[in-house]
């Protein structure tokens, strides 16, 4: 973690609902290095999109996230609305999930792209700019050229035609490419990709993912990749953060995570990969907990096949289980991965070795259990 472009530290988000306060994000920490692609994996409703909106500053104004979100070292949560606005799109941009609904249906693709080039980062509409734009045909031609060039870069074969088209005239795959093109128009340093391609058929999705991979590679863009599919995360990302019910339960470099999945939830997810047709988490019995009344201890305990009495009582702080591997589970031994949990570590309950290790030849997974009890240094 030499030079993180984005660091999220102890982020909390809660919503006021009819049934009380919902603790939707409960103290998460993760970081993305420059040029790295990090994945945030979890089932629908686990808090992925709230995390993304917190980073982008797009939560409803009544909801104020607590904690730190550092972008290039600067805590964006402490910035004014105008300052955050000026960074959106230019510094950090986003590829929306659903290509069918994320383009404005009543404007041509070209007009939407030109608007981004013209207005991005500006606090409001200004009459003087409107007039100046109307008069200067030069800037307009330049914007048009840039937009068409960008459409070409996302491998759209007839960029001029698509530029003039309304979204309704384009296929889903085309629209997804347009969404990528718009997000990359201003060459942002951080790109948040919210499950791009999920709404498309498998072959188109694969093509779009390859394209995206190439584009960010060329530009050295850092990416936060949101997905519910560990298989996709494995293909695109350098690092994986597994999220469950508003908490990050395991984080590790991609290869490490697949070689040595630790958290029972991660293991559950890995088992459900082959059944692509079912949603994530379907392979694991039970449902996400009630956010307005979350369990006192581990939020996953109710669904965990290895849960013990203590799991329901004590908070499973993330612990260092490898050089660059952290897991929030009592079944693992390790120093707290975050300083703020050091006091908890003193009174931690020792549940012993993970059951699938002691039982040996467990049916859970064919993965070799790695060195899970090794002490890791706290490098964060």
């Amino acid at each position, binding site marked *: 973690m030499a030079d993180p472009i984005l660091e999220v530290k102890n982020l909390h988000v809660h919503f006021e609902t009819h049934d009380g306060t*919902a603790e939707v994000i409960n103290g998460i920490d993760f970081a993305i290095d420059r040029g790295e692609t990090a994945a945030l994996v979890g089932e*629908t*409703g686990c808090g992925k999109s709230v995390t993304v909106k917190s980073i982008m500053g797009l939560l409803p104004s009544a909801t104020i996230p607590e904690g730190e979100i550092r972008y290039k070292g600067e805590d964006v949560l402490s910035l004014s609305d105008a300052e955050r606005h000026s960074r959106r799109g230019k510094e950090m941009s986003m590829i929306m999930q659903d290509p069918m609904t994320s383009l404005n249906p009543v404007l041509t693709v070209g007009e939407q792209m030109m608007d981004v080039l013209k207005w991005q980062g500006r606090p409001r509409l200004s009459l003087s700019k409107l007039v100046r734009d109307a008069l200067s045909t030069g800037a307009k031609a330049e914007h048009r050229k840039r937009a068409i060039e960008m459409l070409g870069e996302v491998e759209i074969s007839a960029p001029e035609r698509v530029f003039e088209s309304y979204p309704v005239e384009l296929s889903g795959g085309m629209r997804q490419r347009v969404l990528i093109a718009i997000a990359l128009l201003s060459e942002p340093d951080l790109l948040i990709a919210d499950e791009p391609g999920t709404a498309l058929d498998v072959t188109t999705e694969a093509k779009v993912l390859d394209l995206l991979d190439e584009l960010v590679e060329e530009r050295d863009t850092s990416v936060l990749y949101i997905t519910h599919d560990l298989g996709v995360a494995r293909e695109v990302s350098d690092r994986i953060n597994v999220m469950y019910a508003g908490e990050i339960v395991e984080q590790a470099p991609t290869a490490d995570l697949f070689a040595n999945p630790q958290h029972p939830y991660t293991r559950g997810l890995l088992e459900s990969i082959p059944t692509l047709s079912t949603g994530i988490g379907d392979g694991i019995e039970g*449902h*996400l*907990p*009630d*956010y*307005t009344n979350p369990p006192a201890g581990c939020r996953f305990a109710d669904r965990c096949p290895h849960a013990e009495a203590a799991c329901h009582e004590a908070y499973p702080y993330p612990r260092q289980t490898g050089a660059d591997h952290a897991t929030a589970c009592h079944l693992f031994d390790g120093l707290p991965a975050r300083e703020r949990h050091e006091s908890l570590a003193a009174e931690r309950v020792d549940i012993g070795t993970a059951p699938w290790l002691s039982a040996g030849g467990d049916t859970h997974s064919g993965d070799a259990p790695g060195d899970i009890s090794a002490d890791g240094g706290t490098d964060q």
Partner: protein
Amino acid sequence: MSTKTSIPFLDTESAARKERIRQLKRGFRTFAGNKLSLVGLAMILTLVVAALLAPYIAPFPEHAGAGVYFDQASEPPSATHLMGTDTTGRDIFSRVLFGARLSLLMSGIVLSIAISIGVTLGLIAGYLGGTTNTVIMRVTDIFLAIPPTLLAMAVVAATGASLFNVMVAIAFSWWSWYARLVQGEVLSIKEDEFIESSRALGSGWMRTTFREILPNVVSPITVKATLDMGFVILVGAGLSFLGLGAQPPTPTWGAMIAQGRNYVTSFWWIAVFPGLAISFAVLGFNFIGDGLRDVLDVEVD
């Protein structure tokens, strides 16, 4: 995001009933918490009570009819004549009270007729299907497309000016929305039943109508009818303003305004107070309707 844990083995029948009761309770709280709708309810209750007790609370009940009291003609509002008197000396407040009876009664009757026609036609079209359905719904579409004010005006124009004709004319132009709603509901229920069992038509239709179709359309009809109570009063007032409604000396609000219109330069109160009464009534129904719409969570229009 769904954060609710589902309990699969709970008796679904009683769960549904409990859910409905819970919704009703929540709806009642929403309605009670909605200040506007409470205000509206109070306004309409006041109006209804005033209309019912008009002969007893009107200071000059005999002024409801014809009469000439020149010694007190065109008096501005005072303690004796709260809303002043008209050019023949009749107490406007008393006449407004009696006008409330007519307006509420007219609106109520018109809507009862319109809703009966609409529901009946909707049921017939939905159940019989085929050509009958097509014909009825085409006619409904035409009626939906013509603004009721205009249609009612044309009908009264042809039939002649009287309160009865006004009511028939408005009802005649007002049923289409209800027909469309009920027909849609019958169709969707029929579709469900074809899939589940084959008892869609036949002897079960009475039961289906009262147990499945009507309960489903009660909410939107209630909201729409509440709002329409106000609008029918407006249309009726407009027609009687033109002299097409109940003939003088019947104290309709619209006719009173028409009388006062000739004296706006000298006796403003003659036209203003009956109009306030209309606005008060319509506003009351709109307040309630607006609140009901939130509570019952239906879109009308």
